[in-house]
């Protein structure tokens, strides 16, 4: 089982390991390009280094005037959050997901006990983190040899280790919550809370309010204190390993104590009827979407406010740097705060596109799980059902667009009044255009090849994203560059939204959605 688990995590472990390594390489190498003179570097350090709000949000920034200090500051939190989520997802999937789907019972009917099986899975997961570490380390060591970065092998290995620790810890957390929750989704949600709380704790600790000791209570705080390259403190590897081993041990013990499929925290399985929204298929869809709406709404709001907030400082440094040409190729021409916001809204556009595809995969899941039969065997038309879901999805996308505009404006307003609310609202609605286009195309695919909905939808977003960024570096033929939906969208607010191309994208989306509805009405309903 250890080998089975290892094979299960290996692809994503290596992938993320490489991505983390690329993060190191790209931010190390771009620093040298952006901040050429010592004066640039000193002004950056002055802007962020002693800034309490920055250190609360992103962690302390001790040596921004060096490549190493800047790189660690820039990537550690992103890597920690991605790694933590990946660790949670991987361990809850392989421990709890397989149990929920009944695969465990097959394995357990062999000779293994539950304790042994859980232990084996944990070993496999450990192998996955080691693979992630090796992949990141290889790239970090290679980058370290470049003259700009100039980091020896041992510190590079330590840097990679510190980047892998969150994934490691949250695999332990996932294993533990897999024993507590009633289903995988719930186990992942408990883990997500732990990640969120540990972020909040370290934020309070770094906010200069005399509560710095709180950093010792937060798993993310321990990672923050590793401080690779700048002033390494390997001592905080102790709580990291201790915590993870304890969680692993508890998981094995608890796994042996409970029944297969059972949970230690009893879900509230009984409740009085809450009939809100239960008046038809659309009401139900809205009710089922509430958690999705809440989480994406929070994510878009948080990203919007953060990017708005750092836009002022970032825009200042941007106007002096060579990044400006890259931004210009991405469509965010001009200088300063607006150019930075233009690229920021590009990131939000990607988020919205993922939301759009997610809506259609939920629609397909409803069909595959045969819940749709319950409606279609009653007086509900197919087109009415699908059109209702699309209407909800479009409203959701528009609301997210508006929310991102408002939140970015709030973020900007903390430091300056350089960009007006209407400008940012227009930028927010602008990013809904490619998302609507992708929603329509996914609907078309759902209409004739339902099983391919997710693959084609996510594939289209990934392709657009890839082309956009490779194109941004300037290495692409413009025909290929044009296939990216994000390239068709103007990078507002750097320049005004291109109403014509936005309308075209929306029109293509609507036409594709219509065709999808008609095809759906004519095809067979296909179970999973």
């Amino acid at each position, binding site marked *: 089982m250890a080998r089975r688990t290892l094979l299960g995590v290996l692809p994503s472990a290596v992938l993320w390991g490489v991505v983390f390594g690329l993060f190191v390489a790209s931010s190390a190498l771009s620093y040298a390009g952006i901040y050429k003179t010592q004066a640039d570097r000193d002004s950056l350090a002055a802007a962020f280094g002693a800034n309490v709000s920055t250190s609360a949000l992103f962690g302390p920034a001790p040596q921004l005037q060096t490549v190493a200090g800047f790189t660690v500051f820039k990537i550690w939190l992103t890597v920690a959050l991605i790694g933590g989520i990946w660790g949670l997802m991987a361990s809850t999937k392989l421990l709890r997901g397989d149990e929920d789907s009944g695969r465990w019972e097959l394995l357990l009917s062999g000779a293994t006990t539950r304790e042994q099986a859980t232990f084996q899975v944990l070993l496999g997961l450990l192998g996955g983190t080691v693979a992630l570490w090796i992949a990141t380390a290889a790239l970090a060591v290679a980058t370290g040899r470049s003259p700009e970065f100039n980091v020896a092998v041992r510190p590079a290995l330590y840097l990679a280790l510190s980047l892998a620790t969150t994934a490691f810890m949250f695999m332990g957390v996932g294993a533990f919550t897999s024993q507590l929750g009633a289903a995988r989704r719930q186990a992942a949600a408990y883990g997500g809370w732990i990640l969120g709380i540990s972020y909040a704790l370290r934020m309070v600790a770094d906010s200069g309010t005399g509560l710095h000791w709180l950093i010792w209570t937060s798993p993310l705080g321990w990672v923050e204190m590793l401080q690779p390259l700048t002033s390494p403190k390997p001592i905080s590897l102790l709580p990291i390993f201790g915590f993870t081993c304890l969680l692993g041990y508890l998981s094995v013990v608890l796994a042996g104590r409970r029944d297969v499929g059972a949970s230690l925290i009893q879900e509230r399985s009984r409740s009085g009827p809450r*009939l809100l929204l239960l008046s038809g298929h659309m009401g139900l869809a809205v009710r089922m979407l509430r958690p999705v709406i809440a989480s994406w709404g929070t994510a878009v709001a948080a990203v919007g406010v953060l990017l708005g907030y750092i836009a002022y400082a970032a825009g200042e440094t941007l106007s002096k740097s060579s990044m400006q040409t890259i931004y210009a190729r991405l469509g965010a021409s001009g200088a300063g705060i607006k150019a930075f916001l233009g690229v920021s809204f590009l990131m939000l556009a990607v988020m919205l596109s993922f939301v759009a595809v997610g809506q259609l995969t939920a629609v397909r899941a409803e069909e595959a799980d045969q819940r749709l039969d319950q409606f*279609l065997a009653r007086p509900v038309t197919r087109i009415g059902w699908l059109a209702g879901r699309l209407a909800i999805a479009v409203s959701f996308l528009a609301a997210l667009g508006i929310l991102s505009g408002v939140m970015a404006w709030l973020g900007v307003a903390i430091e300056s009044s350089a960009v007006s609310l209407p400008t940012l609202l227009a930028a927010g609605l602008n990013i809904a255009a490619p998302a609507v286009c992708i929603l329509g195309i996914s609907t078309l695919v759902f209409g004739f090849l339902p099983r391919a909905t997710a693959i084609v939808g996510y594939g289209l977003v990934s392709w657009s994203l890839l082309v956009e960024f490779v194109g941004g570096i300037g290495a692409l033929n413009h025909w290929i560059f044009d296939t990216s939906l994000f390239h068709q969208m103007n990078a507002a607010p750097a320049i005004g939204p291109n109403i014509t191309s936005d309308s075209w994208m929306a029109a293509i989306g609507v036409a594709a959605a219509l065709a999808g509805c008609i095809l759906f009405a004519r*095809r067979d309903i296909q179970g999973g």
Partner: protein
Amino acid sequence: MTEAAIRTEGLSKFYGSVRALNDLSMEVTAGEVFGFLGPNGAGKTTTIRLLLGLIRPSAGKAEIFGLDSCSEPVEAHRRLSYVPAEAGLWPSLTGEETLHLLGKVNGHVDEVYRDQLVKRFELDSSRKIRAYSRGNRQKVILIAALMSRPDLMIFDEPTSGLDPLMEHEFRNCVSEARQRGQTVFLSSHILSEVEALCDRVAILRNGRLVEIGTLEEMRHLSALKMEITFAKDIPDLSAVPGVATLQSAGRTVSLQLTGPVKPLLEALAASEITELVSREPSLEELFLSLYGEGQLPKASGAHA
């Protein structure tokens, strides 16, 4: 004058080279309880999904109360309800919330009857679907189908997962429905259930209709089992028309008889008989013979 609740004409469904349903033509009269039988993979679920318009026929057509399943599904669905073999429900809703939702979608619900059904099936409707056992989930969709008292109820293996007491309750509900004049289309593997409830039965095999009629009619088609004990010598009965599978043990002969009884009686007239037992085949024996004999025609049919 009696209206057809279900009518199919040359109804067929092919999946590539798999003929899931081949040229089915039949009629279910309004007010009858109709059994639909066949071995696994015979095409029962396929037929039902075609009737509901969930899948499109490769050829032929299906009508519910004269309404085409493909072109007027909504009108047809106002008059029917459907219980699938495996229900997809929303795990986060409680039983009560699910019934409320499905009732709203239906448009009309007999609420008194619904509450009565919840009691009769002993459903704890305050629990979440996620926390229900399979049988309890099945109860939820059964109640959802019964509570609107539609003109036609289509059941696909409705009692799979129900305990014997609940299955008995289900039979009561179907009997009541018949008394109220509702039509029931029941696909099931539980032959005793079909035997107890159904007026007419159709048997499907390999996507083809092999038998349709009342149970009485079907019994006449199949062999009568007889055991005859003779006082003295056993006469030679092998030449008598309709007699098959002769077996003798001592003075007792067991045989199967198809067709008229008269030739056998004539052949027996000369002998002295101490005991004669004749038994009609149970539905189960009928089906074992019908399902089983499929092997030969299928093999030869493949070459045709």
